[in-house]
């Protein structure tokens, strides 16, 4: 294994300049306000320690079932640094395209302190890639991945995120992708931070003409884990299927802000997120389907279903529509509620104890999204993690 050089050493001049500029802005920026809709419901009363950024990677975490079960290439990003120094990093052009619309504290900090996003493109996407993103210490880290799917090709990428330190860390991950004309990206994101980590992930996917995205996200870990996603349906005929499964316990907050921006004509999106919360956990889903004037013949749907498994837990589910075109089909559904009594009764009438009946119901609830994770090892791992959380809570009388 090669070790990456310390932050800044490999910087191209454009990167150094931008880094310096962003770093100069950071001190003046304050924590976002929860009065802003996009930060609503969160507890941001903590010190993000953004200048305590990692200057070098810590010792990598051991391989686990996902890594050992993976048949293709594995790329590790430890504390923001790619452990394989030969991997290309982001270039000025690819980065500029994806500079975000907002400049908040976390975006500025990412610009200032990230060692640079790993770029996956061309041949490297010929076979499925697993990206193992690790936060190993208590430093604040800024891992980045950029996936450039060439026109007409298929790519399959799993990004999993995990952390090691009990002292607590802040991670600001950034995931960007440009899916070329008539190309397809199959992306799974498995968020498995430990319960001391706070993560503020930003993801932006831009779809070309007839380009397709399938995204399956599983949110399991994190004290506070946020994923702010934009999918820009720029190309005519582009389409996406977006699945999400999240399970919060203890004091976890799982926060999803999904924005579907339909710009081209004839674009299509199906979004389906399912979550459960127990103990004092909170989940937030705010989704926006935005259809520009140019987005005629858009078909876009979002559904978010939530199970509340204990009385102290809560789920916010806020789907929104913003439609500027007149010839579109869209809709949204959202629900928050307990386990279904009739299902429990039916399963018990077949001889299952109430605990087993509820386990089956919880498993079934998530199956409709977990079954869309393309890699079987990853899907089974997510299934097992979710049910283990629930069964432990049952055993300890927390649900």
């Amino acid at each position, binding site marked *: 294994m090669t070790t990456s050089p310390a932050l800044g050493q490999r910087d191209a001049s454009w990167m150094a300049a931008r880094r310096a500029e962003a770093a100069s802005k950071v001190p003046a920026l304050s924590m976002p306000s929860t009065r802003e809709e996009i930060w609503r419901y969160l507890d941001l009363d903590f010190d993000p320690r953004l200048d305590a950024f990692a200057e070098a990677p810590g010792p990598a975490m051991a391989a686990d079932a996902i890594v050992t079960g993976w048949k293709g290439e594995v790329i590790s990003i430890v504390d923001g640094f790619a452990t394989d120094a030969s991997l290309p990093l982001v270039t000025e052009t690819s980065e500029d395209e994806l500079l975000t619309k907002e400049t908040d504290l976390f975006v500025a900090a990412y610009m200032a302190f990230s060692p640079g996003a790993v770029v996956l493109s061309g041949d490297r996407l010929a076979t499925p890639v697993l990206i193992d993103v690790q936060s190993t210490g208590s430093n604040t880290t800024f891992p980045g991945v950029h996936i450039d799917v060439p026109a007409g090709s298929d790519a399959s990428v799993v990004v999993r995120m995990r952390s090691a330190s009990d002292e607590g860390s802040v991670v600001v991950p950034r995931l960007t992708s440009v899916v070329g004309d008539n190309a397809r990206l199959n992306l799974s994101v498995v968020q498995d931070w430990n319960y001391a980590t706070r993560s503020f992930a930003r993801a932006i996917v831009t779809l070309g003409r007839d380009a397709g995205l399938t995204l399956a996200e599983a949110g399991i870990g994190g004290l506070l884990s946020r994923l702010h996603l934009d999918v820009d349906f720029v190309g005519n005929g582009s389409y996406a299927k977006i699945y999400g499964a999240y399970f919060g316990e203890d004091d976890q907050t799982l926060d999803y802000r999904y924005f579907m921006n339909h710009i081209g004509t004839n674009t299509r999106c199906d979004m389906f997120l399912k979550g459960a919360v127990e103990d004092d956990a909170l989940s937030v889903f705010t989704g926006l389907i935005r259809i520009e004037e140019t987005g005629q013949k858009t078909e876009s749907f979002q559904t978010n279903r939530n199970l509340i498994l204990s009385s102290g837990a809560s789920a916010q589910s806020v789907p929104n529509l913003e439609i500027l075109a007149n010839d579109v089909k869209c809709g949204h559904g959202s629900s928050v509620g307990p386990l279904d009594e009739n299902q429990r009764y*039916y399963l018990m*009438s*077949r*001889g299952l*104890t109430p605990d087993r009946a509820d386990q*089956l*119901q919880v498993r*079934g609830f998530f199956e*409709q999204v977990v*079954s869309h994770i393309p890699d079987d090892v990853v899907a089974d791992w997510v299934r097992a993690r979710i049910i283990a959380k629930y069964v432990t809570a049952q055993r300890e009388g927390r649900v």
Partner: protein
Amino acid sequence: MTNALEVHDLRASIGDLQILKGFDLVVPFGEVHAIMGPNGSGKSTFSHVLMGKSDYEASGSAKVAGVEVMGLSVDERARAGLFQAFQYPTEIPGVTLDELTHEMALSNPDDTGFDQRIAETSERLSMDPFRTRSINLGLSGGEKKRSEMYLLGVADPRVAILDEIDSGLDIDAVRQVAAMVEDLRDPQIGVVIITHYSRILRYINADKVHVMVAGRIVESGGPEVADTLEAGGYADYQIAAASAS
């Protein structure tokens, strides 16, 4: 001798609404009984109260193979040998029939016959395409009933209550279900069919037909009772029940 099912003075209400008002029924092992009665007379409520559904305030006695089940939880009643085929089987998204039968086997570790019954009943009812689908989800009315019959075959209970198992079935399916019920007839089991149609009783030799009106059994007799009902409806019974209460 122990009977398959002995129900005595079963009463059930929801809030102020009394639904079962002293329901009595005895089904000996090896017999198949039919219960007929107008809509809303409480037939499904009887089935649910016997199964232990928590919506109802219930009292009375119900013995399954000699075991008092009132006071037991729903799953304990199932494991005591009670099976209910639901009039409206519940959909369980994301859970397959195979997963359910697997769990049923795990719930009854002493019963080693599950694998064989799964194979046999599945073959008999051509269940293969349904076993890997979500339970009851998107099934037609008749397919749901078939799925319930499949689970009955897999469960191998001591008492089976089949609530309108013949509703929504095409002619061939009614015959198939009837044949399966006749095959079930065994000194180890007692069967109760709740039905609106004497049609299924043409293929099943019901040992007794009971008429249920306004929360209780008002008449019991042989198969001829079904023919009388077919000709005259429930009007006479309903008038009698109204003047009695």
